[in-house]
């Protein structure tokens, strides 16, 4: 039976933007009523364009941003109510890997120092911390010799491996990966993705995997949420989202991905081309946020925000025109 590890309900995060040259103070709703569940040992992928709020969700879970509404429950405990030791414990259950391993490692610290610092936080101190460092390095595919190196002596892929090893120091159950492979070269990216999959299998980790790259998400995720302007507009299993997308935004995203495949240029497939760009979150459009760019938009879309509902293919979609689930009349 699956157990729910993380439960996010109606999360709201609003930033205050102070006045500056040529702009007024404003409140920016970055995350607007986001709900999802993450089961232990599985991966939830979050996709969306920049500014859609996907990173803000991760940062709020980590306590870097403060939520302005809604709740986050980890193993059933309300994260907002945690204090002191419980909060420290919570932070160890959940770790984060950032996009840029150049910024997220201390350039002055040797790899061993970086890892030892994190190992110290553990409740059960290992008998030989240095041995633990070596074991962690082995887990992420680095030899012992890396322990004495500093970040500048490592390649991008190696740095990201060290970031992963550091996340593993406190034996987390959930790792938030925010564009964790986006800065890596293609050939190195594949190595790190394989590593993340192996670690999930071996350690039973859950991932909240945030990426703008849909093909990476399709490889990594069991469940996928598509974000647009602070909302999850479609949420379902990997197959539901990639094989039978219901929301017009999801469809447009999927058809905009250029692929290295042999194409017959004489019969170019009609692609769904979106016009315009994601609107500003300071001033979201009325009704459905996607309506100014949506090829299907009707009058109702301009006035009424669509509720999220179960569609005929099983996933949740927030669109007035997504195929609704066939309601079987009860006898």
């Amino acid at each position, binding site marked *: 039976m699956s157990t729910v590890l993380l439960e996010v309900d109606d999360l709201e995060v609003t930033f205050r933007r102070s006045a500056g040259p040529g702009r007024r103070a404003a409140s920016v709703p970055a995350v607007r009523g986001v709900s999802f569940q993450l089961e232990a040992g599985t991966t939830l992928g979050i996709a969306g364009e920049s500014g859609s709020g996907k990173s803000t969700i991760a940062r709020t879970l980590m306590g870097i941003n403060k939520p302005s509404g809604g709740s986050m429950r980890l193993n059933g405990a309300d994260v907002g109510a945690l204090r002191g030791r419980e909060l420290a414990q919570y932070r160890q259950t959940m770790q984060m890997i950032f996009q840029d391993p150049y910024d997220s490692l201390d350039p002055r610290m040797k790899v061993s120092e970086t890892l030892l610092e994190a190992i110290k936080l553990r409740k059960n101190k290992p008998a030989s911390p240095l041995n633990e460092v070596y074991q962690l390095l082995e887990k992420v595919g680095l030899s012992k010799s890396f322990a004495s190196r500093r970040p500048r002596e490592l390649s991008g892929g190696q740095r990201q491996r060290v970031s992963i090893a550091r996340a593993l120091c406190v034996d987390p159950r959930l790792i938030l990966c925010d564009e964790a492979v986006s800065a890596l070269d293609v050939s*190195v990216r594949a190595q790190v993705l394989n590593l993340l999959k192996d670690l999930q299998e071996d350690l039973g980790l859950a991932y909240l995997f945030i990426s703008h790259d849909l093909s990476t998400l399709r490889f990594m995720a069991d469940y996928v949420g598509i974000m647009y302007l602070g909302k999850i507009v479609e949420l379902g299993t990997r197959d539901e989202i990639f094989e039978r997308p219901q929301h017009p935004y999801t469809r447009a995203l999927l058809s905009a991905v250029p692929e*290295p495949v042999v194409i017959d240029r004489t019969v170019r497939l009609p692609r769904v081309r979106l016009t315009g760009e*994601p609107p500003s979150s300071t001033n979201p459009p009325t009704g459905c946020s996607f309506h100014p760019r949506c090829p299907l938009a009707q009058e109702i879309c301009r006035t009424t925000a669509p509720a999220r509902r179960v569609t005929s293919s099983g996933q949740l979609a927030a669109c007035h025109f997504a195929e609704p689930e066939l309601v079987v009349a009860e006898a």
Partner: protein
Amino acid sequence: MSALLEVSDLVVDFPTAADGVFHAVDSVSFTVSAGERVGIVGESGSGKSLTSQALMRLVPEPGTVSSGSVLFEGADVMAFSAKKLQKWRGSQTAMVFQDPMSSLNPLMRIGRQITESLQKHLGLSKAESRTRAIELLQRVGIPDAESRLSDFPGAFSGGMRQRVCIAIATACSPKLIIADEPTTALDVTVQAQVLDLLDHMATELNTGVILISHDLGVISSFCDRILVMYAGRIVEEGTAEQIVGDPQHPYTKALLSSILRLSEPIPRRLKPISGAPPLAGQRASGCSFAPRCALAIDACRTLDPALVPASNASPGQRVACGVAAPAAFELADEVTAA
């Protein structure tokens, strides 16, 4: 038909810590015709951006173009005087960069940034250049173009800024546009729009386009011809169909098989290329891909393969691999012996 741009044996050197030199771009040759879309694909450090900078004579210090020639419509770019170079860069060619914010002046209104080159290079009057600037902004799909002329770059979104950069780049109707990762900082839906715009330039205005990207998907969907670079060299060259459909170089093959595609079944595991590209100045002898290559034989570690016609006899496809095309080693031999 003569080529618009002809690059031959271009070498860009950087000094190494040990008082040596390191060829960051090594014997790169290619041509671009009018209206042709040429893609340069490679990982970071492969020399793809440096190649484009070198042919514009914009190699950053302490790098130098140590040999090779660049002919633009037959004229030797390397011999241009400073004045001629400036005129050529401004009116005949244009560059579009990854980060539109850093290539726009944040303190200058957009209108002024466009009209500046129109007045300087085309000798238009203030009023004429203003009308033209509005047309240019409309052409790149900026709504409400007239009123936006007085906006500063900060008032535009990322995709809009990139459109402004393309408007500036195309202001003087250049014959060649070099776009270096122009869509890497953009969202996928906006990326599609920007690529459409560049496509329009090539098709309608017969502009030659060099598109530089790490993304084989972007490159292969946009370009007519592709150059694959690795460690400063072109390792394979061919049409998009040849490179994607029948790659010959082990690096191109490995790169393609390490990529995820939405159009294919989900693999259980990815097939990565082991190791990492060589660091600057740390190139082994022989083929620079040999340490990561599953097919490498002894000769690969000593002989530096030349770029030769591929043995699949596909017209125009060339490969620098002695295993895929033995002629690559034969030529390498001659070079070493000479």
